[in-house]
């Protein structure tokens, strides 16, 4: 058998494939259904939050910030409750990261405000002396891509049954409905409503003016996303 494999490249390749594919089959596939069930209190991202998530990804924030609180006292002290699998049910892709050059952000919405983020993104060292994080000034002028976020909402609702426009249970016993527009125009209107709430808490006059004009700068979307991480 062994002799034969060594001299028949095709079957040799099949053999190699079986050996390497085996671990993946056993380890990965079987737990798929279980791990993607949301826990109570987990709601899908709104249009603006999703656009903010795209800004986060576009700028590879995940290269330096994790979104995974490990079950250690030092981590729960610093960041809050440790992560649960179901909390990530609507995260496509996951953003756990692999390096904490900066702190974890999975529950950053619990302890940072819109105002803090605004100052921090403009000049990190102004709120965190000694910070090595670069400034992200262009986020104040670049416009967020609401249409793509809307397209993603439609896609996940269509293919993965993500419950938009349906009530999802919250921790305090109430329910919440995350709205998704019926058309591009409606989706933009919904996002703008959310953006106005964020912009009201911000100081930058340009940002306020832009939102008043009906456009949404990247920074507003990003802050909406960061505030949603709880």
């Amino acid at each position, binding site marked *: 058998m062994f002799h034969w494999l060594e001299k028949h490249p095709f079957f040799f390749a099949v053999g190699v494939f079986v050996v390497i594919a085996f671990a993946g089959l056993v380890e*990965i596939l079987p737990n798929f259904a279980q791990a993607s069930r949301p826990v109570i209190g987990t709601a899908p991202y709104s249009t603006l939050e999703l656009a903010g998530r795209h800004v986060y990804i576009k700028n*590879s924030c995940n290269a*330096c910030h994790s979104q995974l609180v490990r079950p250690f006292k030092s981590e729960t*002290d*610093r960041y809050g409750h440790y992560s649960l699998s179901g909390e990530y049910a609507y995260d496509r892709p996951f953003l756990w990261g692999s390096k904490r*050059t900066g702190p974890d952000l999975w529950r950053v919405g619990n302890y940072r405000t819109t105002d803090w983020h605004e100052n921090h993104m403009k000049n990190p060292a102004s709120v965190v002396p000694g910070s090595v994080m670069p*400034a992200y000034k*262009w986020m104040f002028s670049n416009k967020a891509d609401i249409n793509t976020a809307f397209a993603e909402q439609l896609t996940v609702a269509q293919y993965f049954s993500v419950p938009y426009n349906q009530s999802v249970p919250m921790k305090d016993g109430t329910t919440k409905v995350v709205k998704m*527009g019926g058309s*591009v125009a409606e989706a933009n209107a919904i996002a703008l409503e959310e953006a106005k709430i964020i912009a009201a808490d911000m100081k930058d006059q340009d940002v306020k003016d832009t939102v008043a004009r009906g456009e949404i700068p990247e920074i507003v979307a990003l802050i909406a996303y960061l505030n949603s991480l709880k």
Partner: protein
Amino acid sequence: MVNRPLEYDYTIAKMFMLTTIVLGIVGMLIGVILAFQLAFPGVNTILGEGLAEYTNFSRLRPLHTDAVIFGFTLSGVFATWYYVGQRVLKVSMAESALLMFLGKLHFWLYLVVVVAVVVSLFAGVTTSKEYAEFEWPIDIGVVVVWVLFGMSIFGLIGIRREKSLYISVWYYIATFLGIAMLYLFNNMEIPTMLGTSAAGESGIGAWYHSVSMYSGTNDALVQWWYGHNAVAFGFTVPIVAMIYYFLPKESGQAIYSYKLSLLSFWGLMFVYLWAGGHHLLYSTVPDWMQTMGSIFSVILILPSWGSAINMLLTMKGEWQQVAASPLIKFMILASTFYMFSTLEGPIQAIKSVNAIAHFTDWIVGHVHDGVLGWVGFMIMAALFHMAPRVFKREIYSKSLMVAQFWIQTLGVVLYFTSMWIAGITQGMMWRAHDEFGNLAYSFIDTVTVLHPYYVIRGVGGLLYLVGFLMFAYNIYKTMSARPVEDHELQNASPMGA
């Protein structure tokens, strides 16, 4: 046609040698910039505030990893395949017009994909998954390039004169299959232009955007099954293929034990894929997978060391060659670093060690002693060995090689020692509590303390880059060095002063 004796045809090998060097310089240069950005944040705006969006750390970081993995390393793998493949199968590319055409197509399409990747990553178009950042249109290009690579491998095997496949060919085949499987499964995504709104609109938003087919924990599992094994089949398997050919050939020594090389091949294939779970220790993936990841990572020492020891013992009785030849030095050091990082990796995969090491610079250090020490050294050695044979000229300067060797070795040592200290320091500070049970340090305390190590790391990286530029210069000058006769190319490569 002129009746000339049949010769190996290195046209395509030469093309990929060029991209290995160019993309190596690009990847390493970006790496050095990144290192200094962490030490001195002012470097983020090195080209002014206007271009800050494109020169800041976060935009450059995926470019660095992808340039080194898919640019430098993959080019090196392709270059050596188009060289080694012909020789150990005893068949020339010139014998098949079809294979020659496929090889050229392989190169040019590869180049197109590289350009597309550079443009898209600068623009911030990324899926965020590490080493799989490309959006779906580029993924399709990658698959085509990969299929062409496979056709070249199996095509050449199909017309071979040597009945058995040399161990290096085994490893090249495994590289092809492994990456193919991993890449396909990790990049399963749905383009968002397929979404249709209630009002009937479709094709909304950016056409190139897609959403992962897996969510949350599942996505993490697939990603690190990929991420870990992309390292396996990109940074380990093909590099082992290289050393199994180039070290015996350059030294003129038969492999210490060919049988050992065969069984460590199967051992590596079987064990490697399981170890991916060690990237997810203490995360929300099921406990048994984490434990499995830990255990298999430790077992992985055996097949890895099987190959590494086999290489070192190949030099048995011929150790004076290590002193005499800088080329052998590169390969022996590569093999030593291979042993070293395949021991370090399993240590980091032990749960209690991982609790401290994960998310810190120690992991960055581990990757770099593997890539700089093992992958980089081996690929440069391979190219040094190939240069006199593809150009029919002696290597331009031996003393330049020696200088390069020591500069780069110093660079690697500075790199990983500083990152060890940085990682362990930070890991310990994160978990430190005072006598009342409160956290002893705020997060920023654990960042500012790293400044000196970040500077040392930057210097280490810079030294390595300088060495790489010396390498590039040496290869460039080789193209116009003294021509050599065939008999000089039997084993030890001819080198000028």
